[in-house]
């Protein structure tokens, strides 16, 4: 036993998979301490806030400012305020006005602006220029000039008694505050989702739920498959026929169809995460049953089993001591694969809207479902679904890696 374990951990594949899986588990355990609270709390009002660090503007205004004179601050500000659309429009104007733009780089804000201020004339009549276009260019010109002007913002707040606006302070372009001094800062490394929920927090919680779902599904499937496989294989005869008949029925009907039908008939209200897990386990045991059965059949005529029979041992004892230990490693491997496929099944089921009910806990599948429903993939909110896909990939990668490692240890023909 000890020897086998040592051998298992000698397998680099198993070890890598095990470490990845352990890291995932560790994150799940540690992260809630760093960022406690309900993972489904809607902290944002808008949808799909970008990943990043958010600090309270209100608190920022009240934070004492330092003056920093940075020479490139103005240029940066202007550059950032000019979108690519604006730049293209400017180049278009130059072409219409027949300005020489040889060697102009559209990303070179300085050169672009120099040329603009030297040539732009709102009164110029250009061929093919609609009124709307003309007004657009006027607005563009004004906004660029405003940003360049050495302006300050004036901060006002309403007087408590009269309600009149009273000036409080000026905010100049050279005012800087230290982010560390702002009272309220919120880091959202993966932004928020469509409901304004912290994606990272949700993801950590969802990973935990999904792994539990996978484990429950794996335990259910392995338990059913192992019991039926052992009975069918060892007892044989009529019992074998009945069990194989049931197994064949379950095999012929694609388990995913069965899964969909059962999930649908249970109804959204009854579908807690554990119910879904049990349903998944209940539809995926056939494969384990079949392979356990064939392994047992090859074992049941071995002489050590015969010797045990002659010694008058009971059926249960023979199965538990003379058969089960021989297929234990195999069962462990099958279990790992069942866990992995259970997690994937939950994701598929949830993607179809047939997963666990949405109000209690997030799961990886539900997160995908939400991202899809609110078209995160079309509006460029990658953070709402990509990390989820990555997590699913890592979990099944690590589990499958462990499985391959075990296979190499237990199946000497694969050893190199």
């Amino acid at each position, binding site marked *: 036993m000890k020897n086998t374990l040592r051998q298992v951990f000698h397998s680099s594949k198993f070890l890598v998979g095990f470490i990845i899986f352990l890291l995932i588990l560790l994150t799940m355990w540690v992260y809630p301490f760093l960022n406690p609270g309900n993972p489904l709390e809607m902290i944002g009002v808008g949808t799909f806030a970008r990943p990043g660090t958010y600090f309270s503007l209100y608190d920022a205004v009240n934070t004492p400012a330092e003056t920093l004179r940075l020479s490139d601050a103005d240029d940066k500000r202007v550059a950032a305020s000019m979108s690519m659309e604006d730049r293209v429009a400017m180049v278009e104007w130059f072409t219409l006005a027949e300005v020489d733009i040889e060697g102009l780089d559209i990303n070179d804000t300085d050169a672009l602006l120099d040329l603009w201020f030297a040539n732009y004339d709102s009164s110029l009549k250009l061929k093919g220029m609609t009124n709307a276009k003309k007004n657009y260019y006027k607005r563009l010109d004004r906004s660029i000039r405003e940003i360049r002007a050495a302006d300050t913002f004036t901060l006002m707040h309403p007087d408590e008694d009269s309600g009149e606006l009273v000036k409080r302070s000026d905010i100049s372009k050279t005012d800087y505050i230290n982010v560390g001094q702002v009272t309220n800062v919120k880091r959202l490394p993966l932004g928020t989702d469509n409901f304004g929920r912290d994606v990272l927090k949700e993801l950590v919680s969802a990973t935990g739920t999904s792994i539990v779902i996978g484990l429950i599904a794996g335990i259910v499937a392995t338990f059913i498959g192992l019991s039926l496989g052992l009975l069918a294989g060892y007892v044989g005869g009529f019992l074998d026929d009945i069990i194989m008949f049931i197994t064949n029925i379950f095999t012929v009907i694609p388990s995913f169809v069965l899964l969909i039908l059962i999930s649908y008939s249970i109804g959204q209200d009854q579908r807690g995460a554990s119910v879904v897990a049990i349903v998944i386990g209940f539809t995926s045991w056939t494969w384990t049953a079949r392979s356990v059965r064939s392994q047992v059949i090859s074992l049941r005529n071995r002489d050590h089993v015969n010797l045990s029979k*002659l010694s008058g041992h009971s059926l249960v004892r023979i199965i538990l001591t003379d058969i089960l230990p021989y297929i234990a490693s195999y069962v462990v491997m099958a279990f790992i694969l069942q866990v992995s496929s259970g997690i994937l099944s939950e994701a598929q089921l949830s993607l179809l809207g047939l997963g666990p009910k949405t109000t209690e806990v997030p799961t990886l599948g539900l997160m995908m479902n939400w991202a899809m429903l609110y078209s995160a993939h079309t509006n460029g909110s990658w953070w709402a679904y990509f990390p989820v896909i990555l997590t699913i990939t890592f979990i099944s990668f690590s589990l499958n890696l462990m499985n391959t490692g075990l296979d190499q240890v237990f199946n000497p023909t694969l050893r190199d």
Partner: protein
Amino acid sequence: MSETRERKDFSNGPLCLSGRGVTKVFGIGDRKTVAVDHVDFDFHEGEFVSIVGESGSGKTTLSKLLLGLMNPTEGEILFEGKPRDISSGSKKREYWKGIQAIFQDPFSSYNVFHKIDSVLLDCINMRGGRNLSKEKKIELMTEACSFVNLKFAELTNKYPFELSGGQMQRLMIARIFLLKPRILLADEPTSMVDACSRATILDMLLDLRDETGMTIIFITHDIGLAYYISDTVYIMEHGRFVESGKADEVILNPQAAYTKRLISDVPKIHEEWDLSTVDLLSKEE
């Protein structure tokens, strides 16, 4: 080896196991193998029976049939003169109470997850020795091992795969000395044991037979060995018994051509090796 072992006559004694037209067919259609083909036999209580035959002649299959681990395709096996009924699990267990076996392949006879001690302890428990003191159990195990030229102290706490094939076989025989069954089916039990130990072990087995009246069905391909130890010999060829009878009569005065061939194939140490064919072959090259 003493050639003067006294052989008793069992032919009128009480019957132990008999067979009438016992047949076992494996597979169907083109892949059909008739492993045991309509054999009749009468094994008596306390008799030492040898079944001798070439590889593939159906000896192991017959022993599995006798043990009730396989059902015959055709024919009837009688136990103590009455038709044997092992149709249910409890009847099987009842039948197995007095019967033990040594299987041909020692490597697959052990549960690799159990230590050797537990193999022997199991035997003591089966004989109702569960409540004996630890010292007494060790004494019994040591004694059983000594019968087969093994030292228990060297084997304790080891796993079966840490033993040599011969050691495994001898340990299987040691079980018999602890169990003292009424019937023993031994399928080439000493094939991996050195000739010197083999003689001692078989003599011990014969002593056990004399002491307890155990019936021994001994399977071997070595007709010389069968002659040395058995009371009765059955010669098996392609699933059939071609000849049977008292060991002296069959081997000293064989009737079937197959038996004669088996006897002539026994290597004789003092005969000169005939190397003429080898010379011929090397000259041709």
